[in-house]
């Protein structure tokens, strides 16, 4: 995994600080070229991994990357699935069973069973999950997707319900079908790590909010710091700026001060912001690479 990953919230009207700002961004990134321009800027700054939701517009972006492979020879996607609002809105509109059918292929015994309202056996849950993953992965056909994530709303729902095995099915399917590593996004890091241990998923890739003010770090900032320092997993830090509540240098000092954190994902809309953030991470990493002890003491 690269040290710096590029996120996509800014492109799809997601902003945890201001709805006004989210709307302005949705307007700005309405046309695909505006998004490509920002991704190009990030690429030129050395950021070659795009960690993106399986939003339908990402499908259009994939078309662009497929059409211009020569421009991005080493470009990598980390799909994060599903785009939950798509499902949530469908459930509200047509009900849970109907929504499930809507996102599954028409043909096949499973669709027919669901249609008949029959009970679903364990093996079918696994098959349904695989079909849903495949449906989400279609848009990435022919592109490099070395890590495939399950979004926090699903990870955390399964975690809360205690449907741990479904996380295991996901991991297994992503490995077997796509030769990819499974990744897990969560707002409940310590709790999830216990479950991944239980499932025997060794050294998992887990993406969670990691920020200095402890925003959306359920279980508490101390538990997070302890888990990061002592447990065997590959942490990716997201929401490091806590939606802008922390100044960039201070925010990144906190994250870069924890050497076990493997990657940092951030989103930005301007070349200047991308360059600034990337340079800060590089600078702080370089500092850490020099004398270790005084750095840790200072942190």
């Amino acid at each position, binding site marked *: 995994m690269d040290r710096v990953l590029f996120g996509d919230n800014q492109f*799809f009207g997601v902003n*945890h*600080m*201001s709805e006004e700002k989210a709307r302005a961004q949705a307007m700005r990134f309405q046309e695909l070229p505006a998004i490509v321009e920002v991704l190009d800027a990030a690429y030129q700054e050395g950021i070659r991994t795009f960690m993106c939701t399986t939003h339908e517009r990402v499908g259009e972006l994939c078309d662009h990357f497929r059409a211009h492979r020569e421009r991005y020879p080493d470009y990598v996607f980390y799909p994060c699935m599903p785009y939950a609002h798509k499902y949530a809105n469908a459930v509200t*509109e047509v009900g*849970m069973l109907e929504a499930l059918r809507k996102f599954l292929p028409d043909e096949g015994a499973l669709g027919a069973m669901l249609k008949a309202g029959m*009970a679903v056996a364990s093996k079918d849950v696994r098959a349904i999950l695989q079909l849903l993953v495949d449906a989400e992965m279609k848009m990435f056909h022919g592109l490099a997707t070395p890590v495939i994530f399950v979004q926090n709303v699903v990870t955390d729902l399964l975690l809360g319900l*205690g449907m741990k095995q479904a996380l295991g099915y996901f991991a297994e399917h992503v490995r077997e079908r796509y030769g990819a590593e499974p990744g897990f996004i969560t707002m409940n890091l310590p709790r999830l790590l216990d479950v991944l241990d239980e499932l025997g998923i060794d050294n998992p890739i887990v993406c969670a909010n990691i920020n200095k*003010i402890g925003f959306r770090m359920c279980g508490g900032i101390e538990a997070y710091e302890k888990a990061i320092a002592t447990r065997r997993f590959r942490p990716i830090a997201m929401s490091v700026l806590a*939606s802008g509540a922390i100044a960039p240098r201070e925010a990144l000092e906190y994250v870069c001060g924890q050497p076990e954190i493997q990657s940092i994902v951030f989103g930005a809309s301007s070349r200047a912001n991308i360059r600034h953030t990337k340079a800060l991470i590089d600078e702080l990493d370089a500092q850490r690479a020099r004398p270790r002890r005084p750095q840790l003491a200072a942190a």
Partner: protein
Amino acid sequence: MIRIGLAGLGKMGLSHLAIFKTHPEVEVVAACDPSAYLTDALARFTGLKCYSDFERMLAQEALDAVVISTPSRLHAAMVEQALTRGLHVFCEKPFVLDVRDGERLVELADANERVTQVGYHLRFVGAFQEAARVFACGALGKLHHVRAEAYGPVVLRAKGATWRAAKSEGGGALYDYACHAIDLMNFLAGPPDSVGGAALESLFSRDVEDAVYCTLYYPGGATGQLSVNWSDESFRKMSTKISAWGANGRLVADRQECQLYLREAGMTQAGMRPGWSVRYTTELTDEVWYYLRGEEYSAQVNYFVRSIQQGRTNGTNSFRSALEADRVAALISAQRGAGPARDPRPSQAKSRWARIFS
């Protein structure tokens, strides 16, 4: 440990199940839902004891409380069954569709001294709590006007197979969507004593309204406006905003932030300054033990658990409080089709324009 049973495993029911299951002081004993495909999967994968029948679950399990997340039409009867058996009740919004049912159930809960709560989760959103706090401390001065808006992409096509599209089931934007905004207005300004100029409009739905607009009149002379549309796909998800104008300033809050403008006169309250102050969700949100979709969902569950432990029967979102939202919805519903009051005289302005365009 508080022993809980859940009825209804739709979107909210599943979300509640996950949250209650993770609560350290709760034991989820059983759940019930008519869809076998769901209960089967849950039973198999999580060992949850599942029923297809509510009454049987109540009869066979020793519960302290139930969580009811069924279609709105079913709330009243299920709440009554649960209260009659002496259980504490958490019920999804809206509380009931008939105010008389609600009054009876409030009395029943009072008589049995049971804890009751309705899922108006916006009262547990940090920014709205801050808005209510600012409002209650009097910084805005005498209330002049309050406005609540809620928009989102729920019904975007002229079909719809769920109960949400059927008026008799409690579907429609008024009871199923606007109730959040109404409750938020009640949270800040208290209940209005009358409503007027209600427009309930269908954009896509055949049987129910997709948009609700209405004026509310408050006892102190202030007015309010409600503007709700669940067929607005320019919003990614439900977006709720409340604004209030008082003699001393203005307040605007949504899920992310609480913006306050105070005139010089409003600054006497401790810690407040004139001009704009903005507080964001990052500073207004308390940590929860488990997060799913938003802190407020966990916070309301924890509040319910604490209420049971402390015997708090008149807390936030009690049946009594939620019934006030139902009353407003009923007032608005009663205006359905009433139409505008027309000036009986021939309009001067109209004839002038008519001349121009003829």
